[in-house]
Each structure stands twice: as structure tokens, then as C-alpha cells.
């Protein structure tokens, strides 16, 4: 996302419209333990992907970690699976 940043000031209850069908409303601004919290209401088509940035980043990091799997990893998983499925008394084999 290398675009310039548009900065707008809004009051509670006011909104911004993005494109034709997305509305972001400031619902409330609160302070808890010295930190400010802004509650946003987003009206958008149901299939639009909206994530908290940190969730998006976490999934991305998890996918990147998963992409490093090797054939050795694969074989080890299959082995552990067989061990898990074996009757308990056979697990020591």
C-alpha cells in the first residue's frame, strides 16, 4: 500500500464515504487507562474483505512460516500421524 495518506478530521457520528458503497462512521471515542479508543462502524458489501491490520499481518506471517515446509517435515508429520493412530500399546514401537 504505497499510496499517499489522506488525513480527515471527523466528529463523532460523522462519516466518510469511500468509493460508492463503503461508509465509515465514527461511532465513539473513548479513553481507557490513558489510551484513546475509536469505535468505527463500517457499512460495506458483505464480501468486502475487512480486517484489523494486525490480524491480516498475523495470517500473512503464519502463511510465510508454513511455506518453508520440506519433504523431511512432510515425512515426519506422516510418521507422527501413524503413531497417533496406532493403538496406545503400540506407540512404543
Amino acid at each position: 500500500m504505497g499510496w499517499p495518506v489522506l488525513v480527515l478530521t471527523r466528529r463523532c457520528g460523522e462519516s466518510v464515504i469511500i468509493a460508492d458503497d463503503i461508509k465509515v462512521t465514527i461511532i465513539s471515542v473513548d479513553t481507557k487507562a490513558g489510551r484513546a479508543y475509536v469505535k468505527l462502524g463500517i457499512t460495506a458489501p458483505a464480501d468486502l474483505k475487512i480486517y484489523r491490520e494486525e490480524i491480516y499481518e498475523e495470517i500473512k506471517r503464519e502463511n510465510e512460516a508454513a511455506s518453508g515446509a520440506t519433504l523431511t517435515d512432510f515425512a515426519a508429520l506422516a510418521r507422527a500421524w501413524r503413531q497417533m493412530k496406532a493403538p496406545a500399546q503400540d506407540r512404543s514401537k
Partner: protein
Amino acid sequence: MTTDRVRIVFDEGILGFEDIREYELLVDPEERGPFRWLRATSEKLAFIVVDPHLFWPDYDPDIAGACPDLVDGTDRKELSLYVIVTVPDNPLLATANLFAPLVVNGRTGKGRQVPLRGSGFPLAAHIFPEDIREGKVGLAGACPDAQVR
């Protein structure tokens, strides 16, 4: 050994790899285990995936609600669910991403990674039960834990 390949197009890619759309799921006909490779057809990129129901029989996310356009008009039998497996240095500590599973529509050949907002499913759930993870053997308890974060 021959290997069956099922082609799956991820129109949105997979988060972190958005530019890579075409994958194939490699199915070992000898069924030597539940794990599969999901391999990009044109890049050197592959994920280990697994059917989550084999480890978490109760895992039943609301797929139709999470991606209605992907599953619309398709019989449930033609939909498959996979989770991506992350393997750390000790493979027994492997985890699966239950928060953002892969939904595959077998009828259309389309797939998507679908984050389940507000579901509470973990991003990294151990796939093997504790006795396997700790290398202990002969203990009962083959039920892997899936603690909610």
C-alpha cells in the same frame, strides 16, 4: 508411484503470496497419511495442508456465511476444507491454522483462504496430542487440543 493432481485456482492468492494464483493439490493414491502438498504450479512454493476434521472432528466453521460467493450453488459434498500446517524445527510441535482455513469448491476449481472473523478459532493449534508432542509413548489421550486464543 503415481500422484493425482487436482488443480485449484486461488483468485486472491494466499495472504503473503497474493500474486500466485494457480496451485495443484497432490493426492497420494496410496493414502499413506492425511497430509497433502498444495503446490504452486509455476513457482517454487508449497504448503502442507490437511483435512481438519481428522484432527478436530467438531471443527465446523460457517463457510457458507464466510464466503457465500465462493460456495454459492454448490453442493456441500463438492466443498472441501483444508488447513495450512506450519512445521517448526520439531515437527511434533506442528500447528494448523484453524482461523483462516482454505475452502475449495470442487465444482468450480476455485479456492480461497477464508479468515473466520470473530470465530475465536486459533491461528496456530497443535495438531498432535500432548503425548506425541512430548515424545512420550504408550499414553492414552489421542485428542489434540485446540485452545482458543
